[in-house]
């Protein structure tokens, strides 16, 4: 089998664009999914039962169905059945953000619940309002505790952006498979694709491990 690696170098611009698109998708999705997740977590902790039920149903639904199917649903069903036409990038980001918001909301909820009731009571006793107690006392502690879980979600999201290649968003996997189809350099392209993901993903996985060690909740 003769391999021709120059073909990878020839397409370096496309690979770079693909990698940048992957990073862009990750960053945009996460910046939507962090507030989204926090909002959902608050809705799930709301004293109103219907609000709580709706938020729970949303979260459980998105957590119990495959992301790729959610993306397909957004891409094929929204335009065909509801006549909602969005650019591909927006469709991909919406699919990813709804999914990641659901996962983030569970993380935030666990973090908020983990701060003991006594702290809320102490804050209220000092004359703080409920909102102040949440913003100044509960939230900072909760965020520190959920950082490791958020780091894991970040790494998963980075990898899951590859799924939007199925709806023709030109991120790294899509670009690699396109070049593969055009040049018939199968093994070179598959190796380049895996290697670029590895180069980007490995440090992130290691960073997530470090955050785990650094911010671990002590028993």
């Amino acid at each position, binding site marked *: 089998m003769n391999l021709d690696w120059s073909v990878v170098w020839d397409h370096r611009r496309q690979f770079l664009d693909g990698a940048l698109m992957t990073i862009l998708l990750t960053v945009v999705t996460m910046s939507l999914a962090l507030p989204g997740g926090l909002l959902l977590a608050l809705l799930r902790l709301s004293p109103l039962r219907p609000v709580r039920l709706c938020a729970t149903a949303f979260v459980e639904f998105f957590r119990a169905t*495959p992301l790729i199917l959610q993306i397909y649903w957004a891409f094929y*069903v929204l335009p065909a059945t509801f006549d909602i036409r969005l650019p591909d990038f927006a469709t991909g980001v919406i699919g990813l953000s709804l999914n990641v918001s659901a996962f983030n909301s569970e993380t935030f909820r666990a973090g908020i619940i983990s701060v003991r009731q006594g702290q809320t009571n102490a804050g209220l006793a000092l004359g703080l309002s409920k909102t102040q107690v949440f913003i100044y006392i509960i939230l900072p502690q909760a965020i520190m505790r959920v950082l490791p879980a958020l780091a894991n979600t970040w790494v998963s999201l980075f990898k899951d952006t*590859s799924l939007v290649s*199925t709806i023709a968003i030109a991120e790294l*996997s899509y670009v690699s498979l396109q070049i593969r189809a055009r040049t018939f350099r199968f093994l070179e392209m*598959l190796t380049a694709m895996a290697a670029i993901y590895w180069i980007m*993903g490995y440090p992130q996985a290691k960073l997530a491990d470090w955050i785990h060690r650094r911010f671990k909740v002590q028993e």
Partner: protein
Amino acid sequence: MPINLSPILDRWQFLAYGLWTTLVVSSLAISLGFGLGLFIGLLRTYYGRWLDVPCGFFVDTMRSIPVLVILIWAYFGIPLITGISWSTTTAGIVGLGCHLSAYVAEVIRAGLTSIRPGQFRAGLTLGMSPFQIVRTIIVPQAAIRMLPPLGSLVIITVKDSAIAAVIAVPELMRQSQIIAQWTFRPFEVYTVAMIVYFLICFPLARGIDRLYRRLAPLGSS
């Protein structure tokens, strides 16, 4: 908007076959992933550094590459290198299983090391062999602690099996795509597929939660 379920009802066998394949692929990938993961996790916890480095490299590689890429590699890459050609389903099972094994190995290692080393030493003073200590003292406690993360890995694998549609494994997602293309009824087909996945994953998640809540007191040390 009129809902027309006949495309699904007419071809229910085609979809049922997809569901069956999803269940088979998921359970075989889970068996492979748990077996391999247990093996790697034990090696990394109890054997020296020289095994830790290659195992760690495998685990971290699987954790930093998307499942999609692993599946494409399993189906297109491995046959090109080794000359062995296998069916999409086998490639899907191997790809999903290898990906899962890395996460299982991490959970196993974290669970085993979470049992305090004093217990191991106590076992040694009682004259037990290291294998006996691991089997009768460490694993039973660690297994309960590992249950929630391992349970979520099971559910993640069922969901990830849908990604195998990309390499044309005839599972539920793939069969749904085909029917959606034939009938031009994406709404009904994909919604039904989503409900079916939900009906598999949601009870599974709740079941594991309940099991853990019953067993949790046994795992505290």
